[in-house]
């Protein structure tokens, strides 16, 4: 694919096929919602939140992280994006290419352990499969996460409404730009690194400070994709102010050289939140107090106009912000 933007049509196809087969009417949030995870009531007071993800990444070890940290953070964060900041249990399934050095596997599992400690999570079950060389490239990890929340306290993607503020908890595009640069051999000096990290603690701080109405992490397809999904699911419009989107200096300059917008590529340690406007300042302050949220910023508003779509104010005019699909082909003449 073009630049870590995802938009893989095969994935969409499978998701659509699965959704039509496994629609679940009982769930608070089921498969059809295509949310970060599902929410199933277990009794009057509690729901179980479940999420699962398969991780492949090249290279396995990259600046700022590795596949193990990515797998644990991805799953912990998907739970957190549902409002479930206290993971109960994680599973881990490793699929390994025959002949992969033992040290590699060791380093990955060590990293998973460290990430779990950081997130306050435990891997309680697991599996390992070895496949022939040519059948898989070195290593893939599937992780599943489970958490219990009080019934009704989960945060769906579609919970935003007109008037809410949109907050991004940190700089965007770090993972995508850094990984691409490393993989393709671009040299931008030493400042680029992936932001991969569990953010459940950060999300907890935000939720304690105010009413977070919707949440997603801008992984595949970046901030642009996530905002479009939120607008579409809630049937509202979103206005974003380009200047206020937090971007690190290194990512901004690398993105400029590559012609890639930081909001089009993945972050792995950031949350995008819609927040009741009355609580926006409090939530922002809580985020900024947290070491993982020092760059948090209010980036936009939920509006009534242009429902299902996101409009970017560039400072010199307004245009639609569309999700990157595959390679971004220039449109301008």
């Amino acid at each position, binding site marked *: 694919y073009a630049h870590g933007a995802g938009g893989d049509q095969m994935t969409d196809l499978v998701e659509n096929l699965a959704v039509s087969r496994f629609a679940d009417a009982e769930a608070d949030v089921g498969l059809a919602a295509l949310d970060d995870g599902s929410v199933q009531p277990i009794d009057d007071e509690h729901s179980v939140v479940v999420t699962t993800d398969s991780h492949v990444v090249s290279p396995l070890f990259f600046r700022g992280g590795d596949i193990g940290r990515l797998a644990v953070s991805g799953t912990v964060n998907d739970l957190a994006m549902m409002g479930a900041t206290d993971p109960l249990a994680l599973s881990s399934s490793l699929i390994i290419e025959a002949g992969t050095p033992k040290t590699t596997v060791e380093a990955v599992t060590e990293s998973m352990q460290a990430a779990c400690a950081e997130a306050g999570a435990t891997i309680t079950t697991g599996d390992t499969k070895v496949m022939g060389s040519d059948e898989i490239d070195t290593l893939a990890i599937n992780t599943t996460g489970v958490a219990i929340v009080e019934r009704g306290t989960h945060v769906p993607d579609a919970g935003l409404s007109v008037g809410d503020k949109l907050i991004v908890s940190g700089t965007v595009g770090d993972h995508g730009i850094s990984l691409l640069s490393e993989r*393709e051999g671009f040299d931008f000096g030493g400042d680029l690194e992936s932001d991969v990290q569990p953010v459940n603690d950060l999300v907890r701080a935000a939720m304690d400070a105010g009413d977070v109405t919707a949440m997603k992490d801008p992984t595949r397809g970046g901030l642009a994709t996530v905002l479009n999904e939120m607008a579409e699911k809630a049937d509202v419009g979103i206005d974003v102010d380009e200047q206020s989107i937090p971007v690190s200096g290194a990512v901004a300059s690398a993105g400029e050289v590559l012609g890639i917008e930081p909001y089009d590529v993945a972050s792995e340690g950031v949350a995008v939140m819609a927040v009741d406007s009355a609580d926006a300042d409090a939530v922002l302050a809580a985020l900024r107090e947290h070491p993982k949220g020092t760059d948090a910023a209010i980036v936009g508003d939920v509006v009534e106009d242009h429902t299902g779509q996101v409009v970017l104010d560039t400072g010199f005019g307004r245009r*639609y912000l569309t999700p990157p699909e595959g390679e971004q082909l220039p449109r301008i003449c």
Partner: protein
Amino acid sequence: MTVSVTGVVQGVGFRPFVYRTATENDLAGRVKNTGDGRVEIVLDGLQADVDGFLSALRTDPPPLARVENVVVEASEPAGLDTFEIVDSTDSSGGSGSIPPDTAMCDACLEDLRDPESRFHDYWATACVDCGPRYTVIRELPYDRPTTSMDDFPMCADCREDYEEPSDRRYHAQTIACPGCGPTLSLLDGDGSARADGDDAIERAGDRLADGDLVAIKGIGGTHLACDATDPAAVEALRERTGRPEKPFAVMAPDLATVESFAAVSDDERAALRDTRRPILLLDGRRTDRPRWLDAVSPGLHTVGVMLPYSGLHHLLFDHVDGPLVMTSANMPGVPMATDRASILADLDGVIDAALVHDREIVMRCDDSVARYAGGNRRFVRRSRGWVPESLPSPAETDRDVLALGAEFDATVALTQDGDVVPSQYLGDVDNPETVEYLRETVSHLRNLLGTDPDVVASDLHPDFLTTREAQKYASEGDMAGPVQVQHHHAHAASLLAERERERGVVIAADGTGYGPDGSIWGGEVLDATLADFERVGGLSTFSLPGGTAAIEQPARSLASLLDDEARIDELLVDRGALATESEAATVRRQVQAGVNTPATTSAGRLLDAVSALLDVCTDRSYEGEPAMKLESAAVDGAVLDYEIPFGTRDGNRVVDTRQFVRDLDALAGDHSTGDVAATAQWALARGLADVAVGIAADRGVDAVGFTGGVAYNDAITRTIRERVEAAGLDFLGHDRVPPGDGGIAYGQVAVASVRD
């Protein structure tokens, strides 16, 4: 004797004209409008007088009328002894055409200048021969209550003129005088009123003379104006609107003033004076070129010029000496403001004052822009003065089509019983306001034309908002489609349809169009019919490192074309086109890795790269800038002796773009920028023409055409035309449809009309 006249004959003062002509020829009888858009005349009198009448009918109709057909039938004398105008049989008039807006006519201008006239110094006077139409009509039938003149009830004097058949204001729906018509006011930038009426114009003139930026609400839109001869004012306009280099159009009080700063040919003189009053891109004078021209049209040898078309403009020039910059009053990405509130809001911080009036602009319509290239008129923008006039039907079909065009410089087009009506210029359809404007325009035109499209057409680009809108039209209304038309096929089809040809080998050269192979096309030779096309040659593929970034910084494409580390560093880094050697290395690496590096065959991008190579323009700040500045750099250059490098792609002949750029780089060592620029344009044109002529000869096709945004380039157009005509083939160029993306909707209609 009964005479039936078809064409644009209603709402244009045709019946009073018939009345005058008949009475001048001593004829009795009557005239009336018919419900199907004709005018029917009954005449009693001598044959010689009838002949005189009929010849005047054909040679001297009212300025806004278009007589298409006159059918004369003998009939019994009706025994009438006077001539009278009879009310319409049916006032629905739905199939009559709405005329475009036109400039104030000479007779109204005379009234405006005549101290004895009750219209003296009144800016908004109009008659059946002139004034706003398309921009004030809400719906049909065209009558005062269905226009925005509805807010201004006629005074007794106006009513009298309106009802007097011999008056040229007879049934002029936009009739108005100082007693009853719209009024002007001058506001400060913050909205506070400063002056009204004549005073407002005078004060606006003073403000302009003082170097202020003034918004002027006119007929179908609003201009941002400043004194063109005051570089500080022009600089302020650039800064406040974020347009550092973009050429601004100017309005000059009269032809003599135009000729003091631009060279004007006979054709251009006629076009400037034409009642449609387009902005014409003229050659700026090269000897005693006034200094201010460099601020208005930086780096270009051309300047956009128009003459006054509203009474407001004529009166304004009583208080301002020189030419004024008159650019559309819009900020990037938003359609031009048309009412007081949005003028003040959109242009907050930009304008020092606003001259506004209280008549609503129902449909905005930007100024038309044209250029004479290769000896023929080419529309850059076909808008005010031409819209909503129809263009020839591309094919025999009963299918009505709505086409949404491309995304940038967009127009839409609708058909009405086969005739194609392209819309006014809409702008760049990439933001909510312009999408809304597009939708309004579609429904307005549908209403006025009474048409109900069967099928909707769009571009093939998956990310164009117009493509998505087309999907919405298809799913909301009962329209089939969308029929997705490849961009360059649409360009070619627009040319074939305009020139009424079934097939031609067409050179379609522009900046960006989505190809069916997922790459960016733009230097194509197509063997095309309306229904289909085959790509038979063009330019060899090169890379756009960084995608859109490469379009904004042509140095990137140049780096990939040169593919030579040392030269890239010398040329681009040393000159500051790329910031550092590591940036240059990254761009090279990007091409090798294929990261965000779309493949292209774009002629526009190739010209951009040459512009960067010659250090003419390395950063683009407006559409077309690098190629336009290259054309200006080439204008006094001589074509050097040069052999064009050809290669093949998929068995087709293509110009080898890499070799081409390396050759030019070598030539630039020993020759002037002007000579190398002229050589580059010549070689690109000649190379594409050679490919096209070869194909036409092989396949027995008798015409070669040229379309796309590159066809605005005069030198390139001439070279292609000469090569084609030297081969004994017909050269097809545009005259009525823009070669650029403003013509795409018309081409889409042509394709969708015939494609199954």
